[in-house]
C-alpha cells in the first residue's frame, strides 16, 4: 500500500540527492542495488539533472549540458574491449547479459549527471550573487 510503486525505494533517491549535494559520488550507493533499481536510479538522476538545467539555464538548456562530460558509447566500448554492436551498449540491451559492464557504464553516467547538477548549482549561486 505504498504511495511509490516504482522499483526504486524513496530512501535510495534521498541518498542519491544527499550524495549529489554533499559532493560525493552517487555511484557509491549503487553497489548493492538490483538491476531494475539501477535503471530507475539512472532515470531519476537524469530527470533531476534536466530539471536543474532548465531551472538554471532556461531556454538555453540542452542535453549536451549534461552529456558533454560523459564518455561516448564508442569510447566506453573501446575502454572495456567490447566487440558488441554499438546499439547494445547505447540502450539497456546489455544490462541482463553483461550486468557488471552495463552497471559500470551507468555508474559513470550517473556520476557525470551529478557533476552537471553541481555545476548548475554553482551557476545558480553566482546568478544569486549578481542579482
Amino acid at each position, binding site marked *: *500500500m*505504498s*504511495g*511509490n510503486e*516504482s522499483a526504486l*525505494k*524513496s*530512501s535510495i*533517491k*534521498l*541518498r542519491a*540527492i*544527499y550524495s549529489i*549535494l*554533499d559532493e560525493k559520488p552517487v555511484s557509491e550507493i549503487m553497489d548493492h542495488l538490483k538491476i531494475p533499481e539501477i535503471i530507475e536510479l539512472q532515470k531519476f538522476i537524469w530527470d*533531476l539533472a534536466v530539471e*536543474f538545467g532548465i*531551472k*538554471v539555464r532556461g531556454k538555453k538548456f540542452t542535453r549536451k549540458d549534461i552529456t558533454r562530460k560523459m564518455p561516448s558509447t564508442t569510447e566506453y566500448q573501446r575502454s572495456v574491449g567490447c566487440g558488441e554492436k554499438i546499439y547494445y551498449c547505447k540502450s539497456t540491451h546489455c544490462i541482463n547479459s553483461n550486468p557488471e559492464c552495463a552497471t559500470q557504464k551507468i555508474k559513470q553516467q550517473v556520476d557525470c549527471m551529478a557533476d552537471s547538477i553541481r555545476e548548475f*548549482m554553482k551557476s*545558480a*549561486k553566482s*546568478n*544569486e550573487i549578481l*542579482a
Partner: protein
Amino acid sequence: MRIGEVVVFGTSNIEIEQFIEAICQFIQQKDNKICYANLEINDQLILYLYGIQYQDQPETIAWDMLSNKVLGYIFIFNWYQPESLNQIMDLLDYVNEKCAAPIIFAANVANQPSPLPDNLFQDGISLNFNEKLLFCRAGDSATCKKALVALLDIIIDKL
C-alpha cells in the same frame, strides 16, 4: 469543525519541538517521546501536529492508530548529521510499505548555509508524486510553514 492530522517524525526531540513551535507558536502537550500542537486554519479547519521522536525500530510505533487518519508525514532530520538521515531511512522504507500518505522530508540546516541556492527549488525537490525534499531551519516560521504547505499541496494535487 474538521480536523486534519499530520505526524512529524524526527530523531531529536528538540528539533521536532522547534519545528512544530515554529508553525503552531507553542506546544500544547508533551511527554518524553511525543508532543502535540494545533494550528487553526480558519473556523472550519484545524490541523493537529503530532511530533514523535523515532529512535528504535519502526515496529514499535502504533501504526494502526496513526496511519488511518493522518493527512501525511513530515520527516525532519539534520542535514549536517548523516546519522540523523540514516535513522530516518529505516523508518521511511517501513512507512512506504505500510501507508500511501504523502511525506515531506524536511532537511534542517539550522544556522548553517543551505546546500541549495535560495533561488532554486524553493518548493522542494520531488522524489515522486507523493514525496518531496525541502530545506528548512527548525525554529524559523517561514521555512517550517513552507514544509507544511508543501505537504498540503501534494494532498490537493492528488484530489
